């Protein structure tokens, strides 16, 4: 991946500062998003190291997409970050997952940025129960992968499955990524995070998705109000 890290001074050089700005512009153009922790990556690894890291992360995503399909791959990346407490990477990948699933399957995944925020304040056990409640039965395969992923992270997984190396790769890759992203990820506004995939550039899809998501939120709110009204009688 990259050679052993060298301790770098906290302040970026002028060249590195300029590099940060250029890289962000280039990323917006090519990917549809820029990483707000680009400066931290360059501070720790230099410009060449940054390029190496981005290439490696793309390889990891490609492996996971080949194994699980794009929507589930991004959901797994998002949840790996969620369990680490990095809101930026978590929201970015879950957003990407949701957009891809909406585009490819016409389905609205039940976990959006609002739900991620709520989950982050629950214990692991409560969060896992809530995820199960939200995903069963319509998203059974995704739930099965997320459950196994968490069990591997917690060290409670029993036996072995053929998915384990890929799930462990996902966990390890995000552990490493979050080392850098946590500087922005701890306090990230989940609704301000771009989808961490080229699908971020598809404005028309994003508009359709947001309209569908808003309609779904209104439907859920109306359902809750109706239940509360019934319960109060």
């Amino acid at each position, binding site marked *: 991946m990259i050679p052993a890290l060298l301790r770098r001074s906290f302040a970026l050089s002028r060249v590195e500062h300029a590099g940060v700005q250029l890289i962000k512009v280039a990323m917006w153009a090519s990917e549809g998003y820029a990483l707000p922790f680009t400066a931290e990556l360059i501070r720790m690894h230099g410009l060449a190291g940054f390029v190496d890291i981005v290439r490696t992360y793309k390889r990891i995503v490609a492996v996971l997409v080949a194994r699980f399909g794009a929507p589930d791959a991004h959901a797994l990346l998002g949840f790996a970050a969620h369990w680490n407490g990095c*809101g930026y990477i978590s929201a970015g990948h879950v957003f990407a997952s949701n957009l891809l699933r909406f585009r490819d399957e016409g389905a609205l995944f039940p976990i959006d940025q609002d739900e991620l925020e709520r989950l*982050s304040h629950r214990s*692991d056990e409560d969060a896992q129960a809530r995820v199960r409640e939200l995903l069963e039965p319509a998203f059974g395969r995704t739930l099965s992968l997320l459950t196994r992923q968490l069990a591997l992270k917690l*060290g409670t997984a029993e036996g072995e499955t053929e998915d384990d190396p*890929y799930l*462990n790769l996902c966990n*390890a890759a995000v552990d490493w990524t979050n080392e850098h992203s946590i500087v922005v990820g701890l306090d990230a506004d989940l609704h301000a995070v771009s989808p961490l995939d080229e699908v971020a550039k598809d404005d028309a899809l994003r508009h359709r998705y947001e309209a569908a998501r808003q309609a779904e939120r209104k439907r859920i709110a109306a359902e809750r109000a109706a239940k509360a009204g019934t319960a109060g009688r």
Partner: protein
Amino acid sequence: MSEPPYTLSRSDEAAVTIKLAGRLDEAASRRLERALVVQWPDLMPRADRPRVLVDMRALEVCEAGARAALIRAQRFLCRKGARTAYVASQPRLRGLALYVAHMAEDPGAKPAPTLASAQAWLDATAERLADAEQRAEALLQACERNVDAVGAGWRSR
């Protein structure tokens, strides 16, 4: 009576437990930092590889203003050669622990989701960032070989 926001105790000759509970604000975190520095010679007089367990499982809220003192405390532990594990069962608190470890630039500190994994970290010698990088690299190579093998299998049909 509610639990104090922190307690500091020696678990054995080479181990200290810092328990955080309830609400940790800036004032309490500064007191914790001072207590750690002042009490350290008595807590760890001879340990050459002290282990510190920061138990966050009873912590409900850590105010943003508390972070600076936590980071300074972690830097102090790093200078003392301590290995630190933060055990937290809430993702947001593990994120806080990672943030503190990162900003303190302490490769020997790490958040953990369970007491068992925290203990495993304390017993190990790997550095946090290097360990994550090496694990990811090894798994990526293995998975890429597997993907290539599966692809070759399909192509040969």
